[in-house]
């Protein structure tokens, strides 16, 4: 039996085993994409390379057999660099956006395409859950948001942007009309307390998420009613107070305690706050020198100085956002700050590393050409933009569904399970490392009842080809052509539904990227 050394562990290995198998037996993790247990290793992606120290060779561990006296290192600098190189090459031909432009354009990074699909399917409970994962005050923002998302919507390049803001408002209003509104779950109480100073969009949002993390929140405001600029700076005709109150009530029912008509420095001193609370959030709106000096933290003309990723100020345990760091009329920006602050405060209170919101790798197609848009349009209805017909500006259900059907679904349907994205994050891959001038066009194959195939996201690992072959699918999938232009398609140009009659689900699950995905999230 060959004896090998793997990350300084000596083992006796059976001769027919691969390096990967031995590593897995030892609980040593090696990333893989084109490998799936039970199938023949295809040795295509090269993400699983390890270094054999005697020969200095990089070996694909998924298929390289163990040999006597091998000295294997699975995670040194050279290996990491080779993995990054492989990822950068794969990404250089990856035609897909991890996130749709609207989601990237939204300051709160709300998952807009998902919300739209849920509205289209009539699943309004899921829609509001999606919305509220990132936006605490959707009914409010649905009325006053400047909607940066719609400015970058790909549909605008064809006719008009999808009415994202109105759809969000529709889902939020629908929720408010319910006898029992959607209240997110709260984690077990942490016993920690946070003071939030200022109950505008940033403060309210911070409270909404901090409460969910299980922390207690006291919200201080100098006015007699909560809402800040939303109540005192916006025309009630645009934003009726009843809507604002309804969303504030949801935050109250999560457990927020409002301490109104209290001015810091007058009714309560900063030192008392610091004593009483484990963290302080300053979402006071625009500050002046006097106010700034009161807290003794660093500030400039614009406002408090914060780390843009974690929203921490110069004093440990004090966080700030919204107009307090820079004046803005964009309520959604402040709401986004509120969410970011909540994430950082939670990390701080749990004694974790302060990283702020997890920012992930995002593949980007770049400039969309007409050909790409034509392909995307095949997934959407071609009707013109639909605006609410009644005077209140609310969508009726049918209008909302029809408007939602205009969405091009430019996002990836597997943003959280895609291995390419996962490892691009882990190895710090740069998609633009190799300029790619003549990129292929977007191609969407949408002839199957439940599966969508986006060829530009395929890494040609052939797992689906093997799966259909083993299942004896009559047509199945096959490689077409060779070299750089190799593709995976159904033989004889037949439809995807004819190719995938029995094992569509298995193929989607095996596909390491978003190339093969389910049309609807429900099937995940």
């Amino acid at each position, binding site marked *: 039996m060959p004896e090998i050394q793997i990350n300084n562990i000596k083992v006796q290995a059976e001769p027919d085993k691969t390096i990967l198998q031995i590593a897995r037996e030892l609980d040593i993790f090696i990333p893989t994409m084109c490998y799936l247990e039970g199938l023949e290793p*295809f*040795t*295509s*992606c*090269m993400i699983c*390379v390890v270094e054999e120290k005697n020969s200095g060779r*990089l070996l*694909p561990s998924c*298929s*390289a*057999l163990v*040999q006597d006296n091998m000295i294997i290192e699975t995670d040194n600098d050279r290996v990491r660099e*080779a993995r990054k*190189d*492989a990822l950068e*090459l*794969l990404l*250089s*031909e990856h035609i897909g956006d991890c996130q749709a432009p609207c989601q990237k354009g939204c300051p709160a990074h709300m998952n807009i395409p998902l919300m739209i699909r849920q509205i289209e399917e009539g699943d309004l409970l899921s829609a509001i859950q999606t919305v509220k994962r990132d936006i605490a005050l959707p009914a409010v923002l649905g009325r006053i948001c400047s909607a940066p998302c719609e400015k970058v919507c790909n549909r605008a390049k064809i006719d008009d942007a999808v009415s994202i803001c109105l759809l969000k408002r529709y889902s939020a209003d629908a929720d408010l009309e319910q006898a029992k509104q959607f209240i997110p779950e709260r984690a077990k109480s942490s016993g920690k307390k946070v003071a939030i100073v200022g109950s505008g969009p940033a403060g309210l949002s911070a409270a909404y998420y901090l409460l969910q993390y299980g922390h207690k929140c006291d919200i201080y405001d100098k006015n007699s009613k909560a809402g800040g600029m939303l109540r005192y700076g916006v025309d009630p005709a645009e934003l009726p107070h009843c809507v604002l109150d309804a969303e504030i009530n949801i935050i109250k029912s999560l457990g927020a305690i409002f301490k109104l008509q209290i001015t810091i420095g007058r009714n309560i001193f900063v030192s008392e706050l610091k004593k009483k609370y484990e963290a302080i959030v300053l979402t006071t709106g625009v500050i002046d020198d006097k106010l700034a000096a009161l807290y003794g933290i660093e500030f400039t003309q614009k406002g408090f100085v914060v780390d843009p990723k974690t929203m921490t100020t110069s004093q440990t345990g004090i966080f700030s956002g919204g107009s307090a760091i820079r004046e803005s009329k964009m309520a959604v920006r402040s709401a986004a700050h509120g969410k970011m602050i909540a994430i950082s405060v939670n990390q701080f209170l749990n004694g974790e590393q302060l990283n702020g919101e997890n920012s992930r790798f995002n593949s980007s197609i770049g400039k969309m050409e007409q050909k790409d848009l034509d392909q995307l349009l095949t997934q959407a209805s071609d009707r013109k933009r639909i605006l609410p017909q009644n005077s209140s500006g609310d969508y009726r259900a049918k209008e909302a569904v029809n408007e939602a059907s205009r969405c091009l679904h430019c996002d990836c349907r597997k943003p959280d399970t895609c291995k390419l994205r996962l490892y691009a994050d882990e190895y710090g891959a740069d998609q633009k490392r*190799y*300029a*790619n*001038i*003549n990129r292929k066009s977007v191609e969407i194959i949408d002839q199957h009842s439940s599966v969508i195939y986006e060829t530009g996201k395929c*890494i*040609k690992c052939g797992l689906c*080809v093997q799966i*259909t*072959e083993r299942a004896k699918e*009559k*047509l*199945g*999938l*096959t*490689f*077409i*052509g*060779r*070299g*750089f*232009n*190799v593709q995976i*398609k159904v*033989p*004889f140009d037949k439809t995807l539904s004819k190719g995938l009659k029995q094992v569509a689900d298995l193929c989607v699950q095996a596909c390491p990227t978003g190339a093969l995905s389910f049309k609807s999230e429900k099937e995940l």
Partner: protein
Amino acid sequence: MEQDINLNEIDFIIKDIGAGADSVIPILQAIQSRYKYLPEKALQRVCEISDITPASITGVSTFYTQFRHKPVGAHGINICIGTACHVKGAERVYDSFMRNLNIQENNDTDPLKQFTLHKVSCLGCCTLAPVVQIDGITYGHVQPETVPQIIHDFQKYAQKTAHKPQKAEQPLSNVNGEIRIGLGSCCVASGSGKVREELIKTLIDNHIQIPVKRVGCVGMCHQTPLLEITLPGKEPVFYSNVQAEEINDIVRRHFRPKGFFAVTHNINHFIHNVLTDSSGGEMKRYPLDTRDKPVTSFLGSQVHIATELSGVIDPIDLEEYRERGGFTALKKCLTELSPEQIITSVKESGLRGRGGAGFPAWKKWDIVRNNNNGDKIIICNGDEGDPGAFMDRMLLESYPFRIIEGLVIAAFAIGAKTGYFYIRAEYPLAVKRVNEALDICRQSGLLGDNILNSGFSFDVKVKEGAGAFVCGEETALIASIEGKRGMPKIRPPFPAEKGLWGKPTLVNNTETFSLIPWIFRNGPDKFAGLGTEKSKGTKVFALAGKIARGGLIEVPMGITIRQIVEDIGGGIAGGRRFKAVQIGGPSGGCVPAELADTGIDFEALNDVGAMMGSGGLLVMDENDCMVDIARYFLSFTQDQSCGKCTFCRIGTRRMLDILDRLCEGNGVQKDIDDLEYLAIKTKQGSLCGLGKTAPNPVLTTLRYFRHEYEEHINGICRAKKCKALIKYSITDECIGCTICAQNCPVHAIDFKPYEQHKINPDICIKCDTCRQVCPVNAVEVI
């Protein structure tokens, strides 16, 4: 439009070939030879009545270049873009055909469906470069401006020969002596078939009875077609560059003109002119005596082992082969030596595999011999895919018996019962000759049961490749024989342990087998006495490029590059400066003239960044751009990558992107750095030999000619090769003859008699036509 197909024909093909999954490639080849393409209905029929699945037939038929899925035009035009043709302007010729036939981009057939253009890797007539073949008629030294005439001429010719019945019969042989005519592919390509026809006809017409014998390649491809007349008591006389219309004169020179009527055969006179005439003037043809100096030096420093008896023996005359010692080595091995002794002898000879990497032959043999996991298989790798090499083809065409003999010896040594010849389908003549030779061997007890009464039984099948360079890699070759896409697998397991159908398999190159009989006839020490310390014996090269005398040569290892270029090749043609040699084709590298004293040796070549490779040896002069050469090879390997592993599939493509940018004048410094980085990473990360060696042309040109890359960033191509970086203009030497204006295919030159002409740079496509046709050299490239 799909043409009507008769399903019975398809059924018949399957019945004939077999319905097993591994029959897919021969079935596709049969369908394509019937319909000239693969009609989808035919493929679906195959799936209905055989074990072949739609996924398999689609995957395989789109993998190999030989197969096409669209109907073709009435005539096929093969434009050779092999290395030698490339450096002599094949791209411009291709562009000119596209233009003249009005073929749209992304298409290959003209609107009238008369002609279909194919780029082919190598037609094996490097000495006639650039070469174009239309329906089997070869045109050499083609220039963009001669394309319209060629098309016109072909159409005229096609009409004339549409109903041509004659088939000359072989004259009786009652005269001693013989006339030998080279019928290797390169000779045939330059018209020896027609010469032979004409010769036989003339001899019959004149009642001269002397055997006309076909012989294999003589190696002097720069002089083809070659004819040798040997008469008793006289020195043999060589004629080079022989044309059909000269046969009368030649025959008259040697035989009494009894009853001789000077009949002039004037058919296709024009074609032959185009065929060999590079300058437009009258081509001088002369009897060629081997004792003349140039030829002596061409042949002088060569040592013929693989090519022993070159130009002397009839490729498939078994008796002649035996008379000259053929199959004595086999007899000795079967009757006097044990398998172990055979392997020991091969070890003593120092023979290393001639496929490129130079793995000791005996070691592979030994591993297979000692592996007892099932029946053993032996494969002769004749899938020569290097676009500038044709040694294997020449060996298979000219010496099939020698290779079979070597193969049987190896089979006996390792204990194999079954063997395969894997030969590129692009080599129809080689396939035909090998099949003929195998039949003859079977009839003579040299193959089959109980060979030479030794008790040893062995037989061989021929498998045709279908157009994939990567199938030269042994695991891909095996996949191809098994009827799969030719995708390599990781080694180990090596084929010697687990090869074809999972059985222990020995794969050796054609040239390797062809050396075996000599070793046993002359003794291993004699072979080991040739060459260097680690590289023994000889190596066959296809010598081409900017050289006075190109052709197929066999030289002892250790000879220097300079000796090959200067002594054998006669130096650079046209008095230009020797710049570099590209050795080893797409896997090899460029060795600059300064290092021309490097010897031919596996290690020495590796040390300078090149590689023995398959044996292409391309000589370049100062008019060759090294960035362009790197781009040329990369575009080849990129196209030939099987598309499996990331580094090769995308890495070679990204390297090509960068080289394209550099050649188009859009490069920046970062591109050179990225190119080098990618080259190193692709070499290190690729799965098989193709990807691991594909960066070599880039790495060696970067190593020795980095300044040229840097110049390209600054918009300079010193060789004046990269179209985007050059401009055509007319000097005041212009005499206003208007020839350039008349010939310009895009009307970039105004017609102004007796005035100095001018080129409109916005319209000019830099096809070089004006410079070629100008009678006073007034067109300059700046």
